């Protein structure tokens, strides 16, 4: 046993649409997109890297008012208390969408553009350098013609 891993998970099944969640859809990448990018990367001899985002869903910002019972093990003064969530938790219905929003806003602010055919593919061209990212929830494939470090 190397280490123990635990995660606080919200009870998403207790949520009500229109009150504490609205949109839940989030896109995932199409297989054909991955294959096109890999085929092109092979021909152009681009380097292909893989990145993994730690605890992706915890990064999402909540715009809805979501309340949660105080998790066990946390002592609070007085009874009838609850937690108001500012950030997404695993288990919430909107978690994946909030993560997608957060990551795509960040990539767009860096000058990346979403592909028309697949929104999970973002590309950036500057001068002669070209970079492409494929985002599958918290796994990212990064490729391009710029040399590494």
């Amino acid at each position, binding site marked *: 046993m190397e280490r123990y891993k635990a995660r606080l998970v919200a009870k998403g099944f207790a949520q009500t649409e229109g009150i504490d969640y609205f949109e839940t859809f989030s896109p995932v990448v199409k*297989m*054909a997109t*991955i*294959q*096109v990018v*890999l*085929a*092109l*990367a*092979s*021909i152009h*001899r681009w*380097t*292909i*890297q*893989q*990145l*993994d*985002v*730690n*605890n*992706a869903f915890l*990064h999402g910002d909540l715009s809805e008012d979501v309340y949660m019972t105080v998790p066990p093990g946390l002592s609070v003064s007085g009874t009838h208390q609850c937690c108001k969530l500012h950030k997404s938790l695993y288990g919430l219905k909107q978690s994946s969408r909030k993560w997608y929003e957060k*990551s795509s806003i*960040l*990539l767009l602010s*860096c000058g*990346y553009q979403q592909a028309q055919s697949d929104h999970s593919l973002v590309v*950036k061209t500057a001068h002669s350098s070209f*970079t492409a*990212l494929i985002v*599958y929830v918290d*796994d*990212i*494939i*990064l490729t*391009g013609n*710029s040399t*590494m*470090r």
Partner: protein
Amino acid sequence: MTHIKHVLHSNFRIKDLVILKYFLGIEVAHSEIGIYLCQCKYCLDLIRDSGLSGGKPCSTPMDNSLRLHQDDSELLTDVLSYRRLVGRLLYLTTTRPDISFATQQLSQFMSKPTRSHLAAAMRVIKYLKGHPGQGLFFPRDSQIHLTGFSDADWGTCIDSRRSITGYYFFIGSSLISWKTKKQITVSRSSSKAEYRAFASTTCEL
């Protein structure tokens, strides 16, 4: 590239796995001549879980005279495991276009699978046993032309007399997209079926 990694890391804390090796259950191998994708581990797990590890491999995924239909043989009691098996085969088609047709045939009977459908599914697994590591190869030495192929049969589905479309797309000599799908209408001539196949191929493009 290094810049975007810094941006992502400062915002989210990322784990940098360097070169792409394993993504969504797909193994990626790089070499001087190209990139190779396969789902060898996934395929071997599938063979093991179906309990056919000891059996003999088959050279084809399906008997070519077999026309699967909603037949009268005994209904399966364990419908869930049939559905799970076909679902896994469907995921395996992401690097195995060779089983695309067989899987399309099997997936038509998800609601009422019978003994004969299960036998056909087992045949596909025996075929996979022959070459579990087979996959897609993207050569480095290739043109960047987009090429598409499409084909259709004519009313071979016994239950509905609808036709089946198949298409393939290549960039140079790398296969990038394909599909086998039953058409949604009945075609009264083979050329009509071909035209329909052509139309849905163009949609994908």
